């Protein structure tokens, strides 16, 4: 299939195929859920579902960017807490106006992301190690900042972020905007092209004179900002910033990317897939709760789904470097 529009969506033929698996999984899951639970397709449940998917989905955007370059980011869960707590502290303790507080939180996320990016790109420490350290440091910094206690009760403006327009959560609108912009960057800009290229063959990209380090720095900063954004969304949803917020969310973000067909070796995948991956994870949890399945089995069910996804996707992978 040849597309010849002036703007040609760049996801590559194989990427298109990788969308099919998450797409059909998602459809199947929705159909099954609707059949087994009469509550699944109710307005209230869908409304909740969309709000629930928002935070994991926003972390997964940054995670997908990093994974596309062939790296991994383990810090989002902690940076969610840090960004959320920083915003909360700025608004509640320092008394800054809400938008400034939000920018402050995002900036902290960017700063932590920049630390990750510099150490990965310039000092060449594997991203797994650097972000594992940041996972610990981010959590520690959050505890220091909050003194281990939740920051609660924001001015009214914050809760607007977690409100609903009709049945549509504002959160999901924010997520939608982030996804569209981020996918446009991936599909149509040089930066997006280089993100894919680095994941495909980093050496080749260096040889043609592209500044690989700058691209890597960017993806980690972006991931940090996404995590902080997730933290701010969490603040709004809970009307509080808890220092333990987001624990383990990095794994959900990674799982969403993988379920959505993003190749772990980098260079293959799209955000459309990632969003479907995030939906699959959230719907699965939602369904199990609707059915009243005990926690022990929920863990097992989620693990099984991931394995099945990995197996199905690996069939199509001919991209291992």
């Amino acid at each position, binding site marked *: 299939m040849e597309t010849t529009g002036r703007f040609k969506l760049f996801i590559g033929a194989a990427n298109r195929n990788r969308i099919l698996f998450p797409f059909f999984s998602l459809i199947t899951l929705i159909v099954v859920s609707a059949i087994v639970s009469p509550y699944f397709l*109710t307005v209230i449940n869908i409304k909740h579902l969309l709000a*629930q998917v928002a935070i994991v989905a926003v972390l997964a955007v940054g995670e997908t960017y990093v994974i596309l370059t062939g790296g991994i980011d383990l810090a989002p869960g902690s940076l969610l807490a840090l960004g959320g707590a920083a915003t909360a502290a700025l608004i509640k303790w320092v008394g800054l106006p809400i938008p400034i507080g939000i920018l402050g939180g995002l900036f902290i996320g960017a700063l932590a992301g*920049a*630390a990750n990016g510099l150490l990965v790109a*310039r*000092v060449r420490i594997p991203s797994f190690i650097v972000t594992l350290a940041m996972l610990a440091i981010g959590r520690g910094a959050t505890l220091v900042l909050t003194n*281990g206690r939740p920051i609660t009760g924001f001015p009214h403006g914050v809760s607007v972020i977690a409100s609903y327009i009709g049945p549509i959560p504002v959160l999901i609108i924010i997520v939608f905007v982030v996804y569209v912009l981020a996918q446009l960057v991936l599909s149509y800009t040089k930066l997006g092209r280089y993100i894919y290229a680095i994941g495909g063959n980093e050496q080749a990209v260096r040889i043609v004179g592209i500044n690989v380090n700058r691209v890597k720095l960017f993806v980690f900063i972006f991931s940090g900002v996404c995590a902080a954004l997730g933290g701010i969304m969490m603040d709004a949803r809970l*009307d509080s910033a808890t220092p333990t917020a987001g624990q383990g969310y990095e794994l959900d973000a990674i799982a969403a990317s993988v379920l959505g067909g993003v190749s772990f070796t980098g260079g293959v995948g799209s955000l459309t897939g990632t969003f479907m991956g995030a939906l699959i994870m959230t719907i699965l949890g939602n369904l199990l709760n609707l059915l009243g399945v005990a*926690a022990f089995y929920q863990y097992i069910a989620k693990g099984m789904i991931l394995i099945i996804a990995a197996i199905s996707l690996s069939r199509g992978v001919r991209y291992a470097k």
Partner: protein
Amino acid sequence: MKFSLVTGLVLMLGLVMSIGTIGMADQASPRIALFVSTINNPYFVTMANGAKAAAEEFGASITVFDGQNDASIQTKQVEDAIAKGYSAILLNSVDQSALVPVVKEANAAGIPVFSVDRDVKGGQRVCYIGTSNVLAAEQGAATFLRALALTKFAKPTPWKIVILEGIPGASAAVEREEGFKNVLKPFIDAGVIKVIADQTAQFDRATGLKVMEDILATTKDIDGLICANDEMALGALRALKEAGVPVGMANNGVIIMGFDAEADAVAAVKAGDMVGTVAQAPFIQGYWGTEAAVKYVQGTWTVPADTQVYKPTGAKFIPTPVAVVTAENADTITTLTLAKPPLPR
């Protein structure tokens, strides 16, 4: 590249404005090591604060170690502390069994061990300073039942309740569940109460919100909600309010019971959104633990002869106070939980 290394590290460190309080050891005074299971929870932060207050008051130095809820990490930390020759060890163990070997190592090295809040199942402990989660949960459940009956007496039984459990398998979760069930079971069997959902919310606020949202999609006819900690109760409270479900006795709404008496929860109790939360006394646990350790090392205190035994582990048991925070006592509860009552002699 050097620039990046330095900048990267400075940024990382810059985020950690100061990494807490690794006290400079004062050679002359007793050096106490407190091993908390995790610092990632306000409860243990309060415990550490109690310990610090006592250390200051009784002229000791204290170092707090964060076991990160990982038995192997905590084991390593205790081993290191034994090697460094601390005067006494206050252990809030991550795991009842896994820490037994290091307790024995400490015994062999002649360092006295006090268990705080969570005991271990073997080795020599001078005493166990804590509360029984089971007993505390029973008190909470009793208060919950009373409030439920007072509010819902006009409504035909069974009254429908939701239980939110802690992290599956964690000892606090298991014991609190046991306490709840001890009290509620007869009423469930008699058909007065119906448990419409019994789910975990991982001791986590965001998860509490999510699980309650999912439950609300199936029904809004909920009379009571009892939670194994406040974080989950607060998350669920938010979901109920969002869905427009009335809460609290005054509104004839959902009766919500929490556990831990976190500041946010105490505020919710004052506001009438929650009927109560169980207050254990982490501050007193930390305070008493440190006081006992210092004085034991200095030879001015030993475990009183008439001390009872904690049945599950066989340790000598010095119970710290438990109180259920309700609207009546909410204003004065901090005087109870942040008090420094005398250590039993």
